Every structure is written in C-alpha cells, then in structure tokens.
C-alpha cells in the first residue's frame, strides 16, 4: 500500500473526498436508470468513472483508490451484496490502476478520452474475469468483444464529462485542493 499517501487528512481534503464519494454514488444510481443493455447485454455507461478519473487527475492514485473503494463498498451495501461487491471491486480496481499506469507511462502525451476508454476496457476485463471465476465457466469471455466495442463511445462520453469536471474544479478551487 505504498501509493496511499501518508499525508494527514485535513478538513478540506476530507470534505472534498466525501463529496466525491457521494457524487459517484448518485451517478451510480442515475446510471442504473439508463438502460443500455438492449444493444449489448450487460453494457453500462460507466458514469461513476467520471469521479474515479477526476479524483485520479486532481488528487492522485492514493485518494482515487480510497474514493473508489468507498463508492464500491457503500453501493454494494445498499443495492448489491457480496457478489456485486466482488465484480465491482475487480473491475473498478483494475480499471483504476490501468488508468494510473497509462498516465504515469505517457504523462502529458495522453489525454482524458484515452485514459477513460482504457479505464472502461479494463473495467470490463476485470468484471468478466471475476464472473468467469464465479460461474466457473470461461465461455463468458465471448461477451468481451461486444463490451469492448461499447467501451469506446461510453468511454469517450465519460472522458468529455471528466474534462469539464476537472476543468471547473481547478478553476474554482485552484491551488487550494490539497492541504499543503
């Protein structure tokens, strides 16, 4: 757990991370109201990743990890259960660390849409791997190509939203985001 920052939680940062967790929970609820699986069974918009990616860009991997972990824990406590927690945590964490790895590898050369599409792709891969373990059947991998296809438009949409979100948060809070 080297990436978890040792900075103390100041009030400003704590409040801001709490706000991000609650926003991602609301987005998770909104997303469940938008059916997308008529086109691809099991496809989702991935709106929660707006918050995951924004936190990664604004605060770094440590806080993004905490926000994603809290979001998944709370949402599965409310609406899912143990199996939903397992799928979400595999997808969410793989996606987060893939985006972090790409961001560290390409630095300024990679933009938000690329990160978000990659995040969507790895979210699908993580969830399908968890599902293959749960149902003990590798056949579920057949769903992957269609889900990858769906990941492109949804990832770009999430990328655009993240662009505006980070832009405005930076504009409003500027350098006051971290408790330095």
């Amino acid at each position, binding site marked *: 757990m080297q990436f978890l920052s040792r900075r103390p939680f100041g009030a400003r940062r704590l409040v801001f991370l709490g706000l991000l967790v609650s926003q991602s929970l609301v987005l998770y609820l909104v997303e469940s109201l938008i059916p997308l699986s008529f086109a691809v*069974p*099991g496809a989702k918009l991935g709106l929660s990743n707006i918050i995951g990616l924004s936190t990664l860009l604004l605060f770094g991997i440590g806080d993004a990890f905490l926000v994603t972990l809290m979001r998944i824990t709370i949402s599965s406590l409310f609406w899912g259960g143990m199996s939903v927690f397992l799928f979400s945590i595999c997808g969410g964490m793989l996606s987060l660390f893939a985006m972090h790895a*790409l961001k560290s590898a390409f630095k300024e050369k990679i933009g938000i849409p690329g990160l978000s599409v990659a995040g969507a792709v790895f979210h699908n891969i993580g969830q399908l791997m968890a*599902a293959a373990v749960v149902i003990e059947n590798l056949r579920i991998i*057949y769903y992957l*190509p269609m889900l*990858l296809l769906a990941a492109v438009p949804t990832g770009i949409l999430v990328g655009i939203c993240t662009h505006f979100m980070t832009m405005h948060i930076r504009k409003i809070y500027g350098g006051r985001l971290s408790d330095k």
Partner: protein
Amino acid sequence: MKRTDIYIIAAVLLLSAAGIYAVKSMQQDKQAKHVIISVDGEIHNDIMVENGTVKKLEVKTEYGSNIIYIHDGGAEVIDADCRDLICKETGFISKTGQTIVCLPHKLVVTISAESESGGDADAVSQ
C-alpha cells in the same frame, strides 16, 4: 484528444472487431445440437435438440429460478427472478458456441455440437 488517445481508441476498436469476427466464425448452424445448461460450473441439463424440439423447463437452484424455452432448434431464457434480467435480454440463441449467462444465478446456457456431460463425448446423449 491527443495522438495517444486516438491510438488507444483505434486499438480497442480493432481488437473488438477481431474478437467479434473470431466469435462469429466459431458459431455454426448445425442440424442436431445440444443445449447445455450449467449452474455453478456443473452441468445441470444436457438436452439434445433438433429443429422440431419444443420444451419449456424451469431451472430452480439455491440461487433462483430461470425458465428456459427450447424451440426452433435453439433456446432462450423467457423469465427469471434475477435482479438484472440480462439473461432475458440476450434473447434467442441457436448457433453452436452462443451463450446466455445469468450471472446472479451462476447459470450458463450454451449451444454445443456434441454432448458435454462427463469426460467423453458419447457418455450421455439420450
């Protein structure tokens, strides 16, 4: 949008196109086939299906129940008590290799060219 982004998106599109092509080329339309229903990795039903076979069966397990309707040389899940009903939305399958998954119930329905019960192909096929 930067150049790396475009490369990533192009790579994902290419991979998914290749994957869809590969999955499609594995699917064949056969006269006689088996509808294999497995729950939790264990085979629950193995039904020999020809064009005329019509059958409705309810698969009830500790996870929940799915109603599977076999007709026109294929199968579909017509009702289930799971939370997302993705199995129902997947629709009708009839080609070998096609799969319906009901994740909450750990249920998988596949079409196979031959029987999959046990190790050898001709063990149970009545």
